[in-house]
């Protein structure tokens, strides 16, 4: 018997109905949470700007115009111009993708590394756990930003090296998070119950332990997105990250800071952009945490 694509679609929809309903509920709770919606909106705008910013920027971000330097915000330059007469808005729009890139690349490497190492440490225990965790401890013993500064100073200042440095600093946090989670889930009664029902080790890891580690990972991931962007901007601000003339936000704040009393808009707008994006990710992260907890989720449904 052959089904038309439409019938197939309907059958699929019917089969997925319960899980879709559950997902719908998650989004519903997220939608009802005003600050999470605000966070999601900010994050969505940020992603949009990272993708399409350069196409909507009114000027070339590298084009200097010495005659029009330090122009205050005006209709022709909505956010003013900097010391070389470059349009701050255009630079801001171009800069979004550098921050986004930093956040995504750093976490895309450190989360899997952390999950795998932390999972191995937590599940196997014994000397493997000792080795992994002691190395993790060494990394965690140094203040993150200072360690990142050291790495990036040693590697030579550039945006790529700043990202590499941040990755080196970030994975231990996830290793420790996942290890702790795996340890507690491994000892839980439902894992023992699953063993008593004849579930194999691999089955337990993928069906019981990983899903129960996922919520904290996802929440930390969202919150960390903001933190990584902030750290990357900090490195750039301090001169360890993006180098001029790259329109990286932290760099822009740094470039404008000596003219703060003369031309506040040069530092202020990139600074605000950083703050807003970090806030957005934090709000969204908190919202996701509430929405993913089945207990909190159902309470909202009733209320």
């Amino acid at each position, binding site marked *: 018997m052959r089904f038309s694509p439409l019938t197939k679609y309907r059958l699929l929809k019917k089969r997925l109905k319960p899980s879709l309903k559950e997902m719908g509920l998650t989004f519903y709770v997220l939608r009802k949470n005003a600050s999470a919606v605000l966070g999601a909106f900010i994050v969505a705008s940020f992603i949009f700007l990272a993708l399409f910013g350069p196409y909507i920027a009114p000027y070339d971000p590298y084009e200097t115009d010495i005659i029009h330097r330090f122009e205050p915000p005006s209709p022709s330059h909505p956010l003013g111009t900097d010391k070389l007469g470059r349009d701050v808005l255009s630079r801001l729009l171009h800069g979004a993708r550098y921050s986004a890139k930093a956040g995504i690349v750093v976490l895309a490497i450190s989360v899997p590394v952390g999950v795998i190492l932390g999972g191995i440490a937590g599940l196997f225990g014994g000397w493997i756990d000792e080795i992994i965790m002691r190395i993790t401890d060494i990394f965690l013993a140094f203040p993150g930003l200072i360690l990142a500064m050291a790495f990036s100073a040693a590697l030579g200042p550039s945006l790529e090296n700043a990202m590499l440095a941040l990755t080196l600093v970030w994975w231990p946090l996830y290793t420790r998070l996942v290890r702790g989670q795996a340890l507690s889930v491994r000892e839980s009664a*439902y894992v023992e*119950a*699953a063993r*008593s*029902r*004849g*579930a*194999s080790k691999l089955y337990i890891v993928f069906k019981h332990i990983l899903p129960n580690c996922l919520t904290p990972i996802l929440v930390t991931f969202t919150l960390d997105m903001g933190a990584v962007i902030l750290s990357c901007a900090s490195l750039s601000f301090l001169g360890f990250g993006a180098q001029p003339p790259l329109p990286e936000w932290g760099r822009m704040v740094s470039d404008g800071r000596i003219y703060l009393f003369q031309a506040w808009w040069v530092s202020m707008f990139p600074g605000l952009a950083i703050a807003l994006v970090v806030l957005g990710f934090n709000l969204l992260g908190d919202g996701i945490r509430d929405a993913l907890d089945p*207990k909190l989720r*159902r309470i909202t449904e009733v209320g």
Partner: protein
Amino acid sequence: MKAKERLLKVEDLKVHFFTYGGVVEALDGVSFDLFRSEVLGLVGESGCGKSVTALSIMRLVPRPGRIISGRIIFDGEDLLKKSEKEMYKIRGSRISLIFQDPTSSLNPLFTVGYQVAEPLVYHHRMGFKRAWDKAVQILAKTRIPDPPAKARSYPHELSGGMRQRSMIAMALACQPDLLIADEPTTNLDVTVERQILELVKDLQREFGTSVLWITHNLGVIAELCNRVVVMYAGNVVEIAEVEEIFSHPLHPYTQKLLKAIPSAQTVGGKLEEIPGTVPKLINPPSGCRFHPRCPAATDVCREEKPSMIEVRAGHFVACHLYSSGG
């Protein structure tokens, strides 16, 4: 009843826990039989090794515990000689375990129906849709109201009684030969306990499952079981039919235990207690482990460990009081 066919034979089972403080002899030569389609009660105080016995049968004794010696013959095969892979196929499919605390024994992230269906999927290689339907059927058998809806609920949305019902459904999903229930009603209130007992009785009759019911509650034993195994400090002290235990308890410990139950006849009187406490199982008492608390203890009891003797048909006791006479 048909001729008694032996389903499980535990023979001289010794389980020790190797802790920092010393070796804890949790089980010191436990032996008993379990016949097909019977409900066997396992009673004893906390810490006498009831749960360790259950976990040993499943081969799930947690570290630092180890099964030192003994044999666990299940349906003609020694479980202690099985590989871990072979045990996967037995656990949940031929022997199931119900835990004491249904709340923490359910994974909070999956629906109840999913968790009941799970063993069907990996033991019977059933498709998920069929397994789900079967799960709903089994949940219906446990008399959960509105099973299709409850199957789609998460554990925290159910009451304690309903959670324990779903645990029972999970344990019975693959229609095991043996169901081990480790104090499954301790955390429930008495009305729910009563309902669960009724349920297990009915399901046991319907499926013909053998049940090993672990409890410290003699009332539950009287209600449910055919035969009773009384344990004390890692030893089996008495085995008998349930009526026999209540009418003619032989071991001094069993006698004391029965006297410690409040009854309707002795209103206002003081309940008898057993003097002393359960001995520590690091350095257990020599000879009969009950002798420090036993009113009838003699020199023999201090020195020699009593062996199991059959005093009447089907009534076994491990006590020197009966070995001299018989």
